[in-house]
């Protein structure tokens, strides 16, 4: 039997969920349970007595036992590279110190529901805990490049410690670091279904192709984290 991992997130999890469903059983490196709540209600998730409460999937109320899983992955409201690039560029234009920027990034990360729930899980013994950033369209004023992206990833990595930050793969972006539309056309909702009328405009949720990338990213990073743990 494959080891089990648990993916908890907002509506973003629809894309990797669909990719997982379409993946032949033989290629499933891990057995994955997906639990989600729409972005507005993600913060309702609680960790009580070693159990994750209020995490639903397909309207089924379920309480997750932390001990059932080899790893936990969060994919909800952790700031995206663009979010942080915007904040950092505002700070730099005000000549803020590097020390302040680091403190600010940490504060932003620690104020997210993702970090709060991850912390509860970590304290309840759920390890390793991996965190992905939220998907957001690139704001027009923000321009990223390799070095900036790497710096932001490193700030995020430090800010989520002792948990593991998983940066989006370079392949998700175009050459000028915009989200590549091919991963967003025909975006999927939380249940992995094509998201109705918003589909054409939605640059926030990925399609199955994007979901496959995210799923592979999750498998790869969970394997690495488990190796480190051993």
């Amino acid at each position, binding site marked *: 039997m494959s080891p089990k991992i648990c993916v908890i997130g907002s509506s973003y999890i629809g894309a990797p969920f669909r990719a997982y469903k379409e993946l032949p059983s033989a290629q499933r490196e891990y057995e994955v349970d997906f639990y989600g709540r729409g972005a507005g209600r993600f913060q309702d998730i609680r960790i009580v007595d070693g159990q994750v409460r209020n995490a639903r999937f397909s309207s089924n109320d379920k309480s997750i036992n932390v001990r059932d899983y080899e790893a936990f992955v969060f994919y909800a409201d952790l700031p995206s590279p663009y979010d942080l690039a915007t*904040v950092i560029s*505002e*700070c730099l234009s*005000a*000549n*803020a*110190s*590097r*020390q*302040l920027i680091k*403190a*600010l990034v940490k*504060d*932003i990360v*620690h*104020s997210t529901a993702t970090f709060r729930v991850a912390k509860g899980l970590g304290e309840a013994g759920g390890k390793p805990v991996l965190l992905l950033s939220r998907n957001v369209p690139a704001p027009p004023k923000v321009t990223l490049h390799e070095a900036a992206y790497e710096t932001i990833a490193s700030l995020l990595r430090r800010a989520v410690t002792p948990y593991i930050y998983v940066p989006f793969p370079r392949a998700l972006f175009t050459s000028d670091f915009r989200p590549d539309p091919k991963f967003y056309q025909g975006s999927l909702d939380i249940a992995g279904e094509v998201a109705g009328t918003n589909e054409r405009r939605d640059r926030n949720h990925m399609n199955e192709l994007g979901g496959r990338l995210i799923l592979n990213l999750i498998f790869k990073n969970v394997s690495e984290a488990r190796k480190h743990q051993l």
Partner: protein
Amino acid sequence: MKNPYTAKPERAFWRPAVASRSIFDLQEVWRPKFLIEPTDQIVTFGSCFAQHIGRALVERGFNWYSAEPSPRGLSAYNSRRFNYDVFSARTGNIYTTSMLLQWTRWAVAQDAVPGAAWEMDGRVYDPFRPSIEPNGFKTAKEMLANRNASVAAFRDCVQKAKFFVFTLGLTESWFDRDGDYEYALCPGTAAGEFDTDRHIFKNQTFGEIQASLNVAMDLMHDVNPALRFILTVSPVPLVATNSESHVLVATMESKSVLRAVAGQVVRDREDADYFPSYELINSPVIRGTFLEPNQRNVSAYGVTFVMSHFFQSILKRSASSGAIGLSASPLSARSTIEDDSALTDVVCEEELLEAFAGSS
């Protein structure tokens, strides 16, 4: 028998205005010269006690202006650590009127901002704002750019404000002989290295303090002719003195000189008023009621007591002028204190001097 005193109001006479009243029933201790509306932009600078004024203005819904607001997303804890929204710009404490003049001259580009920097344990500290960042800056370049941003923010405050509140704190000051500038603190205390040849102690006189204050106010007035000043004197005693006097004697002398300067400047200028926070804490009538056990720090109750007088006087002035739109209601002392557990947690670089007590 008629004489000038017969026409004086009750507040002019000690028995009815003070002796026969509880300290909590003192009336008309301040009669504001200016009408202050909640919508008027107010900026606050000066020594530690000025921090309470800014905070109280925000609590009462007045338009306290911060030209260097805390970055979006920064926690309240880090906002305090990095000295955001303590004063209207991140100047740190401006203890002396000469330091105020220095900041003003930088802001109006009359003087170039010096490149002075202090180094300690591989970090760089700003000699004019030594505690502005919890662990200093990474490089001198970063520190200087950050200081320049605060100078620009200070200018922004002068340009935009209707009221400039300044709390006079100290007469004792430290200057750099070579650079011809004043430090916020004695070098070698918060950071830097003390050099007896280079670092000059000056206990400023009435004339020097008065001149600095007047020049600073004139320069600000040139930038913003509508600007009005509200002066206060910090009721907080000196942490330490470098004079030959006992610290208690040095404190009384220092505060007396500052109080006298404030009074003189307000009498001389139409654009300035004086708010008696100093008297409301330190008058013998108050009997030290609002001091903490160290007889230095003002308790949260004291701050509320002082600020209640401030706001009640403003409201009364507003009502008497027939102004409308003043809805800021005075809060009870209890609610204010409970709402702000960090009320007494002011950022006071001068307190670093306490670390040197008895170290010789």
